[in-house]
């Protein structure tokens, strides 16, 4: 191992340790009754959003493309897995959940591939708007989908009375009403969901970190930094961008699986572009291309509006102001100069490298 590799290794380990430490502390607090019910209810969603943020960071940070439709992939993963969980009720609990996760990831990956092929030919803001468009299309189509199951198999329609179910049949997907009762199917392992969520976060981290620091990852970043230069040294830019996009979509699908199995009501209206934008906010505030920052930003920013509940109506207003202030403080060149001057005053004599 050379020096650089060791540094990366240490950095990665630190991130894993941070997640595990977070889990241990929160779990101890929770089991000794130091967490309010409200905070306890936030734990699994925090894992959901962390996975989603990490996955989006792969596209935005490492592949350098702005995606505004990530909620669409979460949506696809959530629905595909919830559908499976409702149909395959005779499969034992644990394997069923694992298969559900794999199905969510696989279906989201397929969508990522199909959407990525046309989308990644576009550049910059055009790419952003098309991902937004795809997110909205997915949402719109699922909104009119009705799926029922009976002894004859699956029935699919686009209206509520599009098919007749035989006696004993069950309506699973009900258009805008979505899928209900998925979490009830997993009641025995419900208390383990936070642990499962943390494991999924760790797996996501593992996949992204290994991808990023591999040959593929370096090609992805080369294509981000200079597309033309990357092409001229024989990197197939489209292929590598597509790889990043598909992996990211699959991981977002996993986030969707956890989301749908944690809730008793799954509605498509959750997955609108506001959700995509929310995740993007976490990515940017945590630091573009910084995985540890993504995790920290998600935990803080997701918990923030809930912790501000005491301010009732003012909480979202405060959230908005904090968001704007943080962006200005973090990104404005004037604020950055001011910060580095302040740091020099505190630590005189020490040469400070300009943070990238």
């Amino acid at each position: 191992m050379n020096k650089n590799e060791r540094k990366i290794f240490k950095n990665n380990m630190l991130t894993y340790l941070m997640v595990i430490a977070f889990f241990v502390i929160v779990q101890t607090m929770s089991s000794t009754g130091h967490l309010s019910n409200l905070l306890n209810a936030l734990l699994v969603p925090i894992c959901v959003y962390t996975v989603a943020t990490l996955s989006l960071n792969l596209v935005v940070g490492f592949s350098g493309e702005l995606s505004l439709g990530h909620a669409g992939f979460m949506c696809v993963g959530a629905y595909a897995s919830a559908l499976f969980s409702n149909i395959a009720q005779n499969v034992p609990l644990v394997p069923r959940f694992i298969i559900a996760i794999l199905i969510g990831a696989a279906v989201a990956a397929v969508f990522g591939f199909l959407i990525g092929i046309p989308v990644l030919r576009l550049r910059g803001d055009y790419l952003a708007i098309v991902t937004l468009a795809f997110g909205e299309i997915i949402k719109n189509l699922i909104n009119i989908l009705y799926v029922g199951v009976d002894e004859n198999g699956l029935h699919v329609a686009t209206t509520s009375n599009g098919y007749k179910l035989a006696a004993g049949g069950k309506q699973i997907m009900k258009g805008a009403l979505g899928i209900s009762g998925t979490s009830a199917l997993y009641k025995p392992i419900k208390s383990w969901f936070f642990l499962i969520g943390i494991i999924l976060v760790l797996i996501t981290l593992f996949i992204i970190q290994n991808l990023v620091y591999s040959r593929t990852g370096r090609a992805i970043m080369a294509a981000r930094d200079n597309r033309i230069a990357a092409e001229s040294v024989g990197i197939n830019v489209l292929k590598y961008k597509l790889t990043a996009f598909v992996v990211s979509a699959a991981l977002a699908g996993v986030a969707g699986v956890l989301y749908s199995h944690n809730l008793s009501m799954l509605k498509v209206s959750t997955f609108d572009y506001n959700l995509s934008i929310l995740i993007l906010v976490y990515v940017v505030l945590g630091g573009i291309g910084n995985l540890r920052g993504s995790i920290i930003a998600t935990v803080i920013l997701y918990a923030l509006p809930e912790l501000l509940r005491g301010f009732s109506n003012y909480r979202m207003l405060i959230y908005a102001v904090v968001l704007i202030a943080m962006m200005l403080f973090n990104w404005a060149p004037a604020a950055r100069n001011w910060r580095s001057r302040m740091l020099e005053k505190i630590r005189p004599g020490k040469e400070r490298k300009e943070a990238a």
Partner: protein
Amino acid sequence: MMSFISYLISGINLGSVYAIIALGYTMVYGIAKMLNFAHGDVIMVGAFVILTAITKAGLAPWMSVLLAIVICTLMGITIEAIAYRPLRKAASPLAVLITAIGVSYLLQNLALLLFGADAKSFVTIINVPNVSLFGGQLTIKGITIVTIIVSAIIMTVLTLFVKRTKPGRAMQAVSEDKDAAQLMGVNVNTTISLTFAIGSGLAAIAGLLLCSAYPTLTPYTGSMPGIKAFVAAVFGGIGSIPGAMVGGILLGIIEIFGRAYISTQIADAICFAVLIIVLLVKPTGLFGKNVQEKV
């Protein structure tokens, strides 16, 4: 046939509103190279100002519209100066995008606090009698005629402004090359402020027209039309003024036709699908400039 024409007319009505909003998007994009996500919410603010001025303060309709335009214009200038200008030279273009999202949250939640979440019904301001054609077979609403005329006037004036006047040419210069424009004596900051002022003033008018055609008003009223107008701007080629007009009107027509002939539930999906197809064929929109990348 008559129903086709009447759908076409209401499509042009909706499309004109989209076009006015899209003009704001496209001008700001052309000059500041940023997606102003808060633009849709300025529409909502404009509509709320008009509603409050008429129902609470008892102002005359024309005065309240004027007030809304003034307030929105000032708001646009202030937002640009406080939230966007410090980030103009930021390392990542995403920074200003996220800040714009923050501004959008801020406006929505301010409106939520001041006016509540329940839908208000918008007042009727534009009292123009409906027009009956072909012996009553085809009725065109008064508001539709007003909307189409107003947007035609706005587009003409704006085009003339940008092409013929000094500040308009300054805008073109800044959008072409900021640094070169500055060397030629153009005040870049003022020009960008002016662009935001015009865009936000137009948003107030769009708020009036939108809420006159679809008279329910909530703090979130602006967000979907804002997104649609953004789509329209991209559709026509973002940064291009004629592109925004054509894109807006086409999108309005597609949406109304989709709603009437295919399905109301997936009309939005149809709009977005058309956008995707257009971008795949012409990656920079209908009127967009195709800039060749050089090493």
